[in-house]
Structures are given as structure tokens and as C-alpha cells.
């Protein structure tokens, strides 16, 4: 039991990331409100960033900013996941803005952001 707890504590960031991912995914599927769907999408994005950042961390090392000319790699954490997170953030911002603009147009046309109502109204319109 204490072994298991030890593992949980060691992997706390990854586990938190997975749980956040689950929360976001479930809300993405279950929420009917499109704005809430976008928010849950953003929660999923954040969980991925947390996971990536935790993968780059190494115990007892500092951020990869070279001080006093020490260029030995065993002093610094892994800089690559940081760069990947940066890419992820940019894409997440762009996609969220695009989604929100689409929802804005849907609201203008149908007067609601509820997914079910939009589907119903669109079906009625098609008839």
C-alpha cells in the first residue's frame, strides 16, 4: 500500500494531467452548451501542457538559462518540452478564437448556443 502511495506521489503531475484530461473530455461529450464545450476543450489543452512540462522536469536541476558560463547539460532541465508547450499554447489560443467566432455566427443565426436547439432549428430550416 505504501509502495502504491509512493508511486502516486512520484507521478502526481502526470496523474493530475490525466484527471484533468478526463474532466475536459467528459465535459466535451456531455455539455450541450457550445461555450462550455470550448472551455472543456481548453481544460484538455491545459492538461496536455502540464503533462509535457512534467516530462521535461529533472530533480535538482534549474531552468535552462546558462549562468556563470556553466554549459554542462547535467545542470539544466530538458528544454525541449518547454518549446513544445509553447507551440501547444499558440495553437490552443488560435483554435479557441476560431471556435468562439464560429459560435458567435451560430448565435447570430439561431439565437442560441445550445447544441440541441441549433440542430433542431437547422433540421426545421432544411425541411
Amino acid at each position: 500500500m505504501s509502495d502504491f502511495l509512493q508511486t502516486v506521489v512520484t507521478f502526481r503531475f502526470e496523474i493530475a494531467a490525466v484527471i484533468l484530461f478526463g474532466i475536459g473530455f467528459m465535459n466535451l461529450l456531455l455539455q450541450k452548451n457550445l461555450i462550455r464545450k470550448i472551455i472543456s476543450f481548453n481544460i484538455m489543452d491545459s492538461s496536455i501542457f502540464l503533462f509535457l512540462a512534467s516530462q521535461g522536469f529533472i530533480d535538482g536541476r534549474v531552468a535552462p538559462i546558462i549562468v556563470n558560463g556553466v554549459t554542462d547539460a547535467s545542470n539544466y532541465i530538458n528544454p525541449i518540452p518547454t518549446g513544445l508547450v509553447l507551440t501547444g499554447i499558440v495553437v490552443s489560443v488560435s483554435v479557441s478564437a476560431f471556435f468562439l467566432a464560429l459560435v458567435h455566427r451560430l448565435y447570430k443565426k439561431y439565437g442560441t448556443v445550445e447544441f440541441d436547439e441549433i440542430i433542431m432549428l437547422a433540421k426545421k430550416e432544411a425541411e
Partner: protein
Amino acid sequence: MGTNKQRSRFIDWVNGDTPEKIHEYSYVKKTIPSHTEQAHEEVITPKKARLFDIGYRITAVAVCLVVVSVLLYTVFNLPLFGSPNNPASNEVVERYVEKGLEETGAVNAVAGMILDYRAFDTFGESSVLFIAVGCVMMLLLRDKNNISAEEDALAEKERIIEKEVKDPILQKIVLVVTPCIFMFGIYVVLNGHLSPGGGFSGGAIMGAGLILFAASFGTNSVQRIFNMKTFRGITTIALMCYALSKAYSFFTGANGLETGIPLGIPGAILSSGLILVLDICVGLIVACTMYGFYSLFVRGEI
């Protein structure tokens, strides 16, 4: 007499007979959807649809639980968290950290990585932001085809409110705070190769400063210095500058030529070759993009 009037107004308010205008300076846009009645009338859902809904919910929860449990199982089999020997920190990382200072001249290894070794990736990111603004603009920009007379009247009303209503406390504070935000943003951009930060974070800070200014003084006052024309100019010139300077360094690098750009003394502001230029380009694009999103969502114009 006055108290009497007030009291009657209070009683009216308690009874729910609010006067038409409660807040003179702000208004809540009452959107009456064109299909309200159909949308909110009692819809008798057929049994089939209801069953489908319940089935969908159960499946969704089940799928989520399966995904989360698979991921949790994977997490427990990952290489140990924080261990220096895990496969993610391989020879690539060593190379970036150990040779980065020598080859790129950037003290900040992350900046050296994303703007020198992997600059093409960052160019893609800037393009993604540019394309995102383009898409939002296509969807939300107000033009003849995209606006009804009603909305036009509303926008006009908004403009009048914006011109007449002045909030002295907010505006005075913003006048003090905005230059500080801009200075901090420029500092973060220019020190991208020396300290944490860089084009993206600094650009986001500058964009936030612009948004704050626009939110307190109105978009019209920002339009005097920052309008569609300047937006287009800044973003395209910054992207072109990025593309050209990186194309130059790729060309010379691939052919083994001397770039002719001095790397400078590590730690100085004017060092690390093209990274400073690229940081400034990225910062400008990000600042413009952030403000562009805000302005397009609020007004449908930049």
C-alpha cells in the same frame, strides 16, 4: 415630495415594475432570437430520442472512464518522474544545452532552441496565429453583407455611449498603468535570449496593455493609432521579416557559408545574432493578434 417619489419608485422596484432604464450608461443587449417560440415551446421528445440521449450519456461516461483508466495505467509505467536517466533527456538535449551558447549565442537555451535550431516551427506558430486572425476576421468582420440595420443602430448607440461616458477613476489609473505594461512587455521581448520570456510572452503582455486601454477608453481612441491599416502592415511586415531572415540563415547554413552576423558577447542585449530580430517580429505579431481577437469579438472591426 422627493422622498415620496423615491419611495414610490422603491415600491415599484419591489413589485417588479422596474422603470425602463435602470442603468443609463450601460445596456444589456436584448437579443430576441428569431426562433424563440419554436425553441422554447414544450417539445414532446419521442421515446426514441430520449432513449438515444440516455444511451449517449452512458456511452460517453464509459468511454471517458476507459480512456482515463488506460492513461492512468500508462502513467504508472512511464519512466520515473524527475529522473535524469529517462529517455526524454537524450543526446539532443545535451547538444542543445552544451553547444547552444556557442552556436546560437543565446543565454536562454529555450530561446536558442525555438528561434535557432527549431525556428521553422516557430515560423509555423506565427503563421497559425496570423491565419487564426484571418479566419476570425472572415467570420466576424462587419461589412455590408454581415450586418443588419438593427445591429448597425446598436453599434451607433454603443459608439455614442462610449463617447459620452467617461469613468475618471478607471481612465486615470489606466493612463498610469498602460505605459508600465508596455514597458514590461518590451523588456520581456528584448530580453528573450537572456532571461525567461521572449516574443510570445512579451507580445501577449503588450496585447493585454492594448486591450486594457481599449476597454477603458473605447475602441475608437485606439483606432487613432492602431487601425486595420497598421494591423495589416505590422503583421505582414513582421512575418515577411521573419521569413526572409530565417530563409537567409537556412540558405547559408545548408551551404556551409558564413552568415556574417556576429553572435556578440553572450549576456549582452545586442547578441545572439538573429534571435533578437526574430523575437521582436514574433512579439509584434502576437501583440497585434491578441488585440485583433479582442477588437473583432467586441466590435467586429479593428
